């Protein structure tokens, strides 16, 4: 069963040394009473160690004489430490290819082993960050600089988030306006999406108002992330006024399908991801 018994003993020894030193002062308190401490290492193949201590230590025996017979009370142990419960150190890894949310080739990550082993090391998405591996994958990263799948690790998530949105563009109902880039920027910021003005590409034809024919109708803007990835974001025009009596109220507007402002945009708008998916209500029975 045991192929490498020597290896196992070495491992047990290695495990024994740090723990005995850390427990030194705890043990030294009892040295007057009992001189001998016997530790027992139970090593199983799940790489888990239980460090035990005899509750009633075996008394010392004289030189050249037979050791004492172990009594039943000598087989009662107290648990000193269970290494399985100990907090595990994160693993230092280096990515071998693009991983969504983490980065491109050659990015160093440190992850909890419970996540690192099944998600990265087993599918060979990452390797241990040894000096040789770091050099290897850094080189690879420089070679593949031009054909990275995404410009950064979070771009994919941002694109997915944006493509599922229908942004409400709130404009005045009273004052005449023509839709500009900063209007889009301010309205996106209100929804928690931060973008500079130069990333926005407006629709080709200008949109101006207030025009209640356009109320609740769709158009799209194109957003260029990191000068590279492009996402089309669905926008929906809404007219707002500070007078509550003349405000336009639409019940559950986020669910309603609407028409495009420019009919030629219809195929593009239809090809975008759905902006509203009805979720099934979970029952508790």
């Amino acid at each position, binding site marked *: 069963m045991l192929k490498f018994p020597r290896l196992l003993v070495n491992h047990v020894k290695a495990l024994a040394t740090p723990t005995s030193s850390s427990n030194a002062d705890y043990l030294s308190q009892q040295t007057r009473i009992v001189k001998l401490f016997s530790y027992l290492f139970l090593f199983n193949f799940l790489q888990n160690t239980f460090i035990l201590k005899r509750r009633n230590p075996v008394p010392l025996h004289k030189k050249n004489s037979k050791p004492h017979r172990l009594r039943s009370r000598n087989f009662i142990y107290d648990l000193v430490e269970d290494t399985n419960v100990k907090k595990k150190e994160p693993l230092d890894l280096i990515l071998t290819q693009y991983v969504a949310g983490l980065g491109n080739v050659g990015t160093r990550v440190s992850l909890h082993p419970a996540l690192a082993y099944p998600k990265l090391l087993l599918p060979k998405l990452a390797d241990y960050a040894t000096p040789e591996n770091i050099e290897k994958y850094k080189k690879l990263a420089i070679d593949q600089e031009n054909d990275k799948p995404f410009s950064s690790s979070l771009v994919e998530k941002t694109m997915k988030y944006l493509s599922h949105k229908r942004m409400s563009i709130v404009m005045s109902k009273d004052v005449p306006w023509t839709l500009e880039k900063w209007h889009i920027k301010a309205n996106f910021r209100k929804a928690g999406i931060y973008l500079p003005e130069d990333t926005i590409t407006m629709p080709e034809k200008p949109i101006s108002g207030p025009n209640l024919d356009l109320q609740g109708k769709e158009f799209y803007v194109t957003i260029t992330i990191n000068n590279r990835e492009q996402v089309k974001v669905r926008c929906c025009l809404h007219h707002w006024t500070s007078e509550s009596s003349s405000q336009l109220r639409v019940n559950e507007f986020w669910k309603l399908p609407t028409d495009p402002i420019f009919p030629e945009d219809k195929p593009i708008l239809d090809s975008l991801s759905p902006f509203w998916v009805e979720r099934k209500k979970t029952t*508790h029975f």
Partner: protein
Amino acid sequence: MYRQASCLNFYPLISFLQARNYAARKGTREKARKKKVKKVIEKIGFIPHEQRVKTGGRKKALELKDISPDDSKKFEPIDNVWISKFHKWKIYSFEEAVQNHRETHHPTIYNLPNEPIKAFLELDMQHVKKTKFVDAFTRIVCLPHVFDHGQTRKLLVFCKNPEMEDIARDAGADYVGGKQLIKQIQNGQFSMKEYDIILSEPTILPDLLLIRGLMRKKFPNAKSGTLGTDLKTMITKFLTGMRYTGKPHETLKSFGTVDVAFGTLDMDTKQLEENFATVIKDVNEAKPRRPEPFITRAVITCSPSPERFKVNFEQYLLKNKALEAEAEAEEEEEEEEEEEAKQDAVIASH
């Protein structure tokens, strides 16, 4: 005799014996009976066990992170387009925050260019002792750049001499009086009820003590700034100042908030910043004597926009500290000078 009686099933002595040698007070038992309120158990229809409210086990206590979210574990944005909910909260400079609010309140969007702009401050209400918390407090802050905040309050001023009365009236006090007024109040000819704040000069304080009971909490004192020699600044402060309250959270007493307007959007940005700095300094004066910061977060809001821009407020407090240190140093110097002068004087008298 006893044996006889026992034979007859008759205990003459015992029947008269009482454990207590005094009479129970009248109605004591009745009271005790009344105290016992019968618990009426209401019959409830069948509830599936999934929907039953758990009676055992305590409710989870509310934590700070449930009220004001903690973003310290989120990442800094790395792209030029980023989504706030996946990243750390952006910290704006004051100018940028105001500029952003001006964008959303532009005539072509909200069309509210002179909306009041507000500071929302989150406070750590922990007192010096761990079991104690700072109570709700109300203060009036005197803003350097006045705006129409809609708060009105009536001032009643007590002064000793007519010259001071004129000064107070010019400054804008609603009613000014002296000894005569105190007598009228004592007689009940004049009512103080309609006045929100009562100011006074220190010289008239002995006479004011007569009507202390009528004033109660409104009685002028130096700590709240209602008692002082410089009536003019006091009156302008209480007339134009901004009143705000710091409220502790309903259940989590260690968390408090202040929501105070410090200007309107059409004011100059520098003026707004000065007003904001004074608000921050004024709120920080309510801080208990402990080393940890009192204000934990400052956010600039402007209704009806839902946006809240987090602002670095510590710079204003730092300036304050530096100034204080300077002022203290100056005071010390002055004191030293005074001491020297005193010594000189002593020597001179010899």
